[in-house]
């Protein structure tokens, strides 16, 4: 962290004490000109001189040296690193300057930044809540039920001439009570909207790419067709192998593929398995990377180089990508999609998946791909007329950050931070490599089967720390009998079901003992008009 400038502090304290530079200088035994250099922060001081100055100025040493300001500087550095402010290229030194010269302004900025972060999160949560809100869905359902009873009853009263007086009285009673209930729900809804402070959302590139996938229902017909065509050019066989792809890359694309024990030092970093040098058209693969990973990386590069136009056309036609950063990220994601379509051809993969009842390990074996590649492909099986089981996919790192999300319309996944702590995606970290399954029930009574597994991200050497992440596949219990992971689960038995929520801020289960945060809005019952 940058050094806190002492000069301005000494100067302002000296003035407060009504001392001249020369007086203070002589009292601590230095020349006036040296004192001047110190106050302009052109000389660094320490040791006994610093102690003498602090004593003469009656300035607690930790305040003078800025130890107590250190957390402010750390906060300022965090602000400087925010993607929003990165273009300003602020350096750590300027954070220390601000904290030293204008400590109150620095604190004000940190306070405002904290408030801004908090409000951004609230806006996100509210936006998600409006989109996926269980109360809203529940209220609309209640309104429709009451309206149904009212409509049907009033039609009976209006059109039936042969009602007995008792029947007529009974139906009038229903009309009155259903109208009352309808008014209650409408009032509650009205209060809810009054209480909600819904703002617009500024999206990050990652979110825009997620929106791109979800607007296509995770399936890109053009890329599937293009991938099939490309695979046929690469091999006559059924399976696109790394060797065939390397040949194709060399002869058709002029790309050289090397296998090396290490990557060039300037780009090597933890988790990086390959390096692409566009000037020399060379792809260097880490020879210790798993074959399935290497195969995927080569396929992705070939897809990017051969089908760049098709991918760009898709990007151009998408209204959800608003920045170049989003487009870049989307280009990468669609190249990966195409690679996946090459290695796991739609019809063949879906047919095999059905035959093994979506057993991920069986599919890994069958197609020589990784667990993640299979999961990723499963969510793309959404071709109209030949769909797989609708799966949601989520990936998290051990800190709980969501690193990948493919939600289902009826299953919201957290956009920021973590989901409900009861989800199996978190408990899977306790048993690496093993499948954890769970039947969950959300507050709107919808039920899903969760299948989670934590896996090591890399093939690691002894010196590399192992990096785990956890992957969750989720499907509606409606599809339980199509999927191997529901075998033997008693879906009808309430004891086997875990009551969960989306995350604490959005969850209405007030009595949940695992709650970490208060709900962001009150529940319907709590806001209901008496």
């Amino acid at each position, binding site marked *: 962290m940058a050094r806190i400038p002492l000069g301005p502090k000494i100067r302002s304290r000296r003035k407060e004490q009504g001392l001249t530079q020369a007086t203070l200088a002589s009292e601590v035994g230095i020349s006036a000109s040296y004192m001047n250099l110190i106050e302009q922060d052109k000389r660094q001081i320490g040791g006994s001189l610093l102690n003498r100055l602090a004593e003469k100025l009656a300035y607690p040493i930790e305040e003078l040296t800025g130890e107590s300001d250190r957390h402010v500087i750390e906060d300022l550095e965090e602000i400087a690193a925010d993607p929003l402010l990165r273009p300003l290229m602020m350096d750590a030194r300027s954070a220390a300057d601000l904290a030293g010269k204008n400590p109150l302004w620095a604190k004000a900025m940190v306070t405002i930044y904290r408030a801004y972060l908090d409000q951004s999160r609230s806006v996100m949560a509210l936006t998600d809540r409006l989109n996926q809100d269980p109360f809203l869905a529940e209220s609309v359902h209640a309104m429709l039920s009451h309206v*149904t*009873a009212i409509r*049907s009853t009033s039609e009976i009263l209006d059109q039936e001439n042969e009602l007995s007086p008792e029947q007529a009285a*009974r*139906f009038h009673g229903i009309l009155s009570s*259903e109208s009352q209930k309808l008014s209650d729900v409408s009032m509650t809804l009205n209060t809810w909207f009054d209480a909600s402070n819904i703002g617009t959302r500024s999206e990050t590139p990652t979110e825009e790419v997620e929106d791109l996938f979800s607007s296509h229902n995770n399936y890109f017909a053009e890329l599937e067709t293009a991938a099939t065509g490309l695979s046929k050019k690469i091999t006559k066989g059924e399976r696109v192998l790394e060797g065939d792809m390397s040949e194709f890359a060399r002869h058709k694309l002029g790309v050289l593929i090397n296998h090396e024990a290490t990557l060039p030092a300037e780009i090597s970093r933890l988790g990086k398995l390959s390096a692409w040098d566009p000037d020399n058209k060379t792809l260097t693969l880490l020879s210790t990377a798993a074959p399935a990973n290497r195969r995927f990386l080569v396929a992705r590069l070939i897809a990017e180089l051969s089908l760049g136009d098709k991918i760009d056309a898709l990007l151009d036609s998408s209204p959800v990508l608003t920045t170049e950063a989003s487009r870049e990220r989307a280009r990468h994601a669609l190249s990966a999609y195409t690679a996946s379509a090459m290695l796991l051809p739609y019809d063949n993969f879906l047919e095999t998946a059905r035959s093994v009842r979506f057993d991920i390990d069986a599919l890994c074996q069958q197609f020589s791909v990784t667990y993640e590649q299979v999961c990723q492909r499963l969510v793309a099986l959404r071709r109209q007329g030949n769909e797989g089981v609708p799966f949601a996919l989520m990936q998290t790192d051990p800190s709980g950050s969501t690193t990948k999300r493919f939600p289902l319309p009826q299953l919201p996944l957290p956009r920021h931070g973590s989901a409900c702590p009861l989800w199996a995606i978190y408990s899977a970290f306790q048993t690496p490599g093993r499948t954890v399954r769970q039947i969950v029930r959300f507050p709107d009574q919808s039920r899903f089967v969760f299948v989670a597994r934590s896996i090591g991200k890399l093939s690691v050497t002894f010196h590399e720390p192992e990096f785990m992440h956890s992957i969750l596949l989720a499907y509606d219990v*409606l599809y339980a*009998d199509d999927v191997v992971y529901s075998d033997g689960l008693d*879906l*009808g038995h309430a004891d086997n079901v875990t009551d969960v929520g989306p995350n604490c801020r959005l969850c209405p289960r007030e009595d949940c003992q695992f709650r970490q945060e208060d709900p962001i809005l009150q529940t319907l019952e709590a806001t209901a008009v008496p």
Partner: protein
Amino acid sequence: MSNGEEAGKGISILIAEDEPNIVESLTFLLEREGYAVSAVGDGDTALRILQQAPPGMLILDVMLPGRNGFEILKAIRANGSLANLPVIILTAKGQEKDRKTALDLGANAFITKPFSNQDLVKQINRISANEE
């Protein structure tokens, strides 16, 4: 609505719906048509009754407590003896996705709440006539 002839001809209809006031209007409307109507408030009870004494037709709400209407429909279609039972799905969720799910799972008709009595009765009479 009722034209003097009894469209129902004593055919039994089971209603699985948890809103008692909707059950009451449905019962009234269908009994007037000559159907023998009974009702249950959740899907699992419906399934049990269907296995013991299958009715001529089932009106099945989607948003039921416990297993929802779609799950019940799937179980019905997987059960050999009930595979041909006429099932009418009743739902307050009018989305295309639900309609598709219902038809994919083998529903004979899909009625969206709030329904008009006349349309509902017509649909049911049409299905019962087809079954004869």
